[in-house]
């Protein structure tokens, strides 16, 4: 069953211009953060959104939990169209969908104890009174491995390490037993040695609650480890979607191949087509015409700079947007 479907979603951010620039030119400029993307996430699935920084993956996550309002397109969550829903209508839905942010240092209120922060969602949604909420928060602290819970309950965020804080953030998101969670690079700011344990924790909750997850990451290795389906994003567009094994074994888009080439392999002799991209990610204010990868793509043909490729079905639940196929 499809839990979330996104179609042709767009979000352009207007560029702040100085007074003089505004006088000289009336034309408004936009950063095309998300430029017409579509995908579906099925219940119980872990869907990874992979791409370099600035490709619009974080904005996509924020649009889906409606911390941002899309410019156009459609988001249907659990059978409800939430594309332009008002904050008041969203509030009851927030019980079912939660987001974990990248930065565990900034996502906790510095003046609220850990326990209060975890109990907060229960109180906001009127699920439990103060005493029950406390009990449940203490239970949750044990669940995320912060023991003894009484000690952590009274602590303030600044007394915790980054990894511990991310556990608190996960506990806060999970205490509502949501159906769907957006995890926006939940481990990228955490010490490498602790990443695996945080991922394990997330996957434990995923199993316990039959959670559906949108996992946003720049790290294909992490995506491979935990996801069922992977979508690769480049400059506001999805260039390839496929089940994880299919994508890793049979990448079709040059950009996906390039990303895979940059992941170190355990077996150095393993044969893999290596693609190295030229240059840097172009400015998203004026993205290249046609296929957005064409200035960097070693395989580009003339058609690539003129015509924008559409996502094509190539079998095995595999979709690619490339003229070469």
């Amino acid at each position, binding site marked *: 069953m499809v839990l979330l479907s996104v179609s042709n979603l767009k979000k352009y951010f207007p560029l702040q211009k100085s007074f003089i620039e505004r006088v000289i030119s009336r034309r408004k400029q936009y950063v095309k953060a998300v430029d017409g993307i579509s995908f579906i996430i099925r219940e119980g699935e872990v869907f990874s959104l992979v791409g370099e920084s600035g490709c619009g993956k974080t904005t996509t996550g924020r649009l889906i939990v409606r911390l941002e309002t899309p410019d156009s397109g459609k988001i249907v969550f659990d059978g409800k169209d939430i594309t332009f829903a008002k904050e008041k209508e969203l509030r009851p839905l927030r019980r079912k969908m939660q987001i974990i942010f990248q930065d565990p240092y900034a996502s906790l*209120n510095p003046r*609220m104890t850990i326990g209060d922060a975890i109990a907060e969602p229960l109180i*906001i949604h009127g699920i439990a009174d103060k005493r029950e909420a406390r009990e449940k928060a203490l239970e949750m602290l044990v669940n995320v491995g912060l023991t003894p819970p009484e000690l952590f309950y009274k602590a303030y965020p600044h007394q915790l390490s980054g990894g511990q804080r991310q556990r608190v953030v996960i506990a806060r998101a999970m205490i509502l037993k949501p159906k769907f969670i957006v995890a926006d690079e939940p481990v990228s700011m955490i010490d490498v040695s602790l990443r695996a344990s945080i991922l394990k924790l997330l996957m434990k909750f995923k199993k316990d609650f039959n959670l559906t997850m949108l996992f946003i990451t720049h790290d294909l290795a992490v995506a491979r480890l935990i996801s069922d389906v992977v979508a690769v994003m480049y400059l506001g567009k999805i260039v390839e979607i496929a089940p994880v094994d299919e994508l890793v074994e049979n990448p079709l888009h040059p950009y996906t191949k390039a990303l895979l080439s940059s992941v170190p392999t355990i077996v150095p002799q393993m044969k893999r087509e290596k693609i190295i991209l030229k240059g840097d990610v172009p400015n998203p204010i004026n993205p290249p015409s046609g296929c957005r990868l064409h200035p960097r793509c070693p395989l580009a043909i003339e058609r690539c700079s003129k015509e924008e490729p559409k996502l094509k079905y190539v079998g095995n639940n595999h979709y690619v947007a490339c003229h070469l196929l």
Partner: protein
Amino acid sequence: MNIVNAILEKLKTMGLLRNSNALFKAGIIIVAGIIILSALAPLLTPYSPIVGTGDELAPPSLKHPMGTNNLGYDMFSRVLYGARTVLTVVVSATLLSMAIGVPLGLISGYYGGKVDRAISIVMDSMYAFPSLILALAIAAVLGASLINAIIAIAVVYVPTYFRMVRGQTLSIKSLLYVEAARALGASDSRIITRYVFPNLLPTVLVVFSMNIADAILTEAGLSFLGFSVPPPTPDWGADLRVGHSFMLAGYWWLVAFPGLMIMLLATGFALIGEGLSDILNPRREAVG
């Protein structure tokens, strides 16, 4: 009691009680000293501040440590009881303007839009007046009394709180933890009271003590010009007014002691403010 405990708890977590510095301590000693002296006034002096001793314009002596004035009132007891008047007016005025300015700033900064623009224009035009002139105008319209002095001073300082709180609210509003609260489904009022307000409380405290220092001078100015408590209520500013006409004749003690007290009390609160802002400075917090 619950509220007091909660505030103490907050102060503790902000590190106030742990890392207080020299400025803060000096300010606390001055202010606490004056408060204690004025509270103990009946024990420290046998004279009433509003009954003549029959001894007029007597210089400082063992009997009258600060001398007497032209009506024979004992200056020492007027200084001690005067502290009560000054503190009452100044503290209630600042609390009142805080009670008005802080919520206005929160609403203005959080919601923005037309409401924000309307409130901001009113506040900015009030801020454009020199504080003493505005206080004088209000007090002159309302008439000289304790309550009116409090109102006049309170109105003058509302924009100070408003501007500070609005600015802080704007910056806190865009922080990730506020966004996280929104993602959890928290209502606006909950975000304001549980996420924004507690995080700007330290700055409000700093502005509060700085403001009291300023308000002491404004109050002294008002009563010097005869727009505060009516005589013979003991009040430092009023005593300055009486004393300044006798100063050239050599009766220096009529102005020296009330003047010194105004300076001392204002300095005390300013020191507390400075100390607080040092303690609450994020850079210091990061180190501690």
